[in-house]
């Protein structure tokens, strides 16, 4: 137990960002919370669906939970079920083998529902395009509110995309 405590103490709090960027982050963090509260009156819950990505986008979505981005500290949580979700985060070109599962997940969400298409593949199929095996983007299957470009988009861009969706919905 002592080594663990020592390690934790020595590591300290690394949550982003360091001096100069910190102000900017505080503003943004405040904005995120503000927007979420205005729209939903509670925390934002996200269900992520990999609709056939190369897994690069998943690596960066998972990075959002590391201590630097501290997603949960912003009041945003990744949920296991679409039934608990306010926002659906979709990656991949939407393979035909995942099309039905994506539709079902979307249908299972309570209203109001937001959708963020994450990465070049979810935008328009990306390098995989539209083919016998892929639908060519999330908007071919379900309504999309925000598209975050990138291959894969870095964590900060993902956060900005989520915020953009929340803001757009708030009108």
């Amino acid at each position: 137990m002592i080594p663990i405590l020592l390690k934790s103490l020595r590591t300290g709090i690394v949550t982003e960002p360091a001096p100069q960027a910190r102000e900017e982050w505080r503003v943004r963090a405040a904005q995120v919370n503000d927007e979420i509260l205005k729209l939903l009156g509670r925390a934002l819950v996200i269900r992520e669906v990999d609709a056939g990505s190369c897994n690069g986008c998943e690596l960066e979505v998972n990075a959002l939970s590391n201590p630097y981005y501290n997603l949960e500290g912003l009041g945003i949580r990744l949920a296991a079920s679409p039934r608990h979700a306010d926002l659906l985060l979709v990656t991949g070109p939407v393979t035909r083998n995942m099309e039905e599962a994506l539709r079902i997940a979307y249908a299972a969400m309570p209203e109001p529902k937001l959708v963020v298409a994450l990465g070049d593949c979810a935008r328009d199929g990306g390098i995989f395009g539209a083919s016998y095996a892929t639908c060519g983007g999330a908007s071919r299957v379900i309504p999309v509110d925000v598209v975050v470009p990138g291959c894969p988009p870095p964590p900060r861009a993902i956060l900005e995309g989520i915020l953009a969706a929340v803001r757009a919905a708030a009108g």
Partner: protein
Amino acid sequence: MANPALPVSRPLAGEAPASYARATPAQWTEAARRVHESGGRLVALWGADRRDAGEAFCIYAAFAGAEGLAVLDLPLAGDHETYPDLSGLFPCASRMQRAVHDLLGLVPEGAVDLRPWLRHGAWRPSDYPLRRDFDAEAFRANAIEPYAFVRVEGDGVHEIAVGPIHAGVIEPGHFRFSVVGEKVLRLEERLGYTHKGIERRFRDFTVAEGYRLAGRCSGDSTVAYAWAYAQAAESLLAIVVPPRARWMRGLLLEAERIANHLGDLGALGNDAAFGFALAQFSRLREDWLRTCNDAFGHRLMMDRVVPGGVAVDVGVDAAGALGARCRSIGAEVLTMREIFDEHSGMQDRFITTGRVSPDLARELGLVGLAGRASGRAFDLRVDFPVEPYSRLEVRKVVHAGGDVAARVRVRFEELIESLRLVPAILDSMPAGETRVQLPDPRPGAFGVGWIEGWRGEVFVAVEAGEGGRIRRAHAHDPSWQNWPLVEHAIMGNIVPDFPLINKSFNLSYSGPDL
């Protein structure tokens, strides 16, 4: 005198130690039998439609033995659409053969399991996407066909169906557990959900461009795939890349290994309910990705390895930052290893959990990191070292425990070794060019690449077509070999240990789904 029972082979140009031979069906079977007898392994199996060249269908197998890779090409005479089954000798061939059937309509004669694998219903059973005459518009929307899972009968046996969408932020796949109480009697995997038509898509690119698609077969292994692809392209073009490019590739591949091992060790701690480990390792991973982003211009290092060399070089500052980061992370990793080792609660979850015995690993052909945790001592960086590995004396990490604890141990030791290799590469990196011009490929030229990624061996074969285009490319992920072992590893364990066992393998879905 050549043995008439075996095909006559010729060496393939390029970095990978490989030979190529055209075989008859009898030679195909005999060669496979001999590879099996001598302890060799099946690396990949794929097919091609060569009817556009006035030939027929053909089926390829890549075997690994003491001399390196042996690629066999079996042309199917006339209208034949069958070839001799390999799954009797190499069980891992079964799913590959099912995929070949889904994509090309070729039937392994004598195989037991002929259920579809990649085809879930999006195209008709009589359509084959990799055939030249496939109608690309003939897909069917929302046509998911039922799948014949193996049923376990008995008192109190029930099924738990999981996926394709899983609870966490991971790739999609379906797991069907047959359980009694908490105990898992049987697991059956149903994959293919991320099938993106990559092999057909390759045809839309030139040999020079295909590295981008290859680097997106499995994003966590983008460097390994891009390097294997580049080796294949350089093999068919018969060109050699400059020394600095080779060292840069080694640097990128080890950087990728570090990133993935850091991520996995955190996730493994987390799956044993030790959130502290996730917080620490995910912080270290982020530190590393940012350092890589600064040095190479991309957090995951996509599109950095290209045919002819590399698309990035490191300056003195970047090299200094990478070296310093390796030292700081290295010190923290040692502390974390001590904490892992001394944490009785976590060791209790790791030890004996999800065990794959060395015998079973050998029989079913486990490879890569998971293989080395079950006594399978294969690491291409040591067995067939290309530059820079030929100059680095890479330490091969092998353990025989075969449980989650052994796979954690292999990760720790390989991580520590890669953190040593990165500064060593930076110290000895030769100066000079990092990229050469590519000549035009000769139609029909064929080449292969073979790289030890962080998960295991990645294999790529490329054949050039007209106008510099790719005629046929096949990319093989080591997850093909290892997924069936996850089914065995969970047997007799409890359902709540599945996430931990699964994560200890951390296999790719996208890679083998193609």
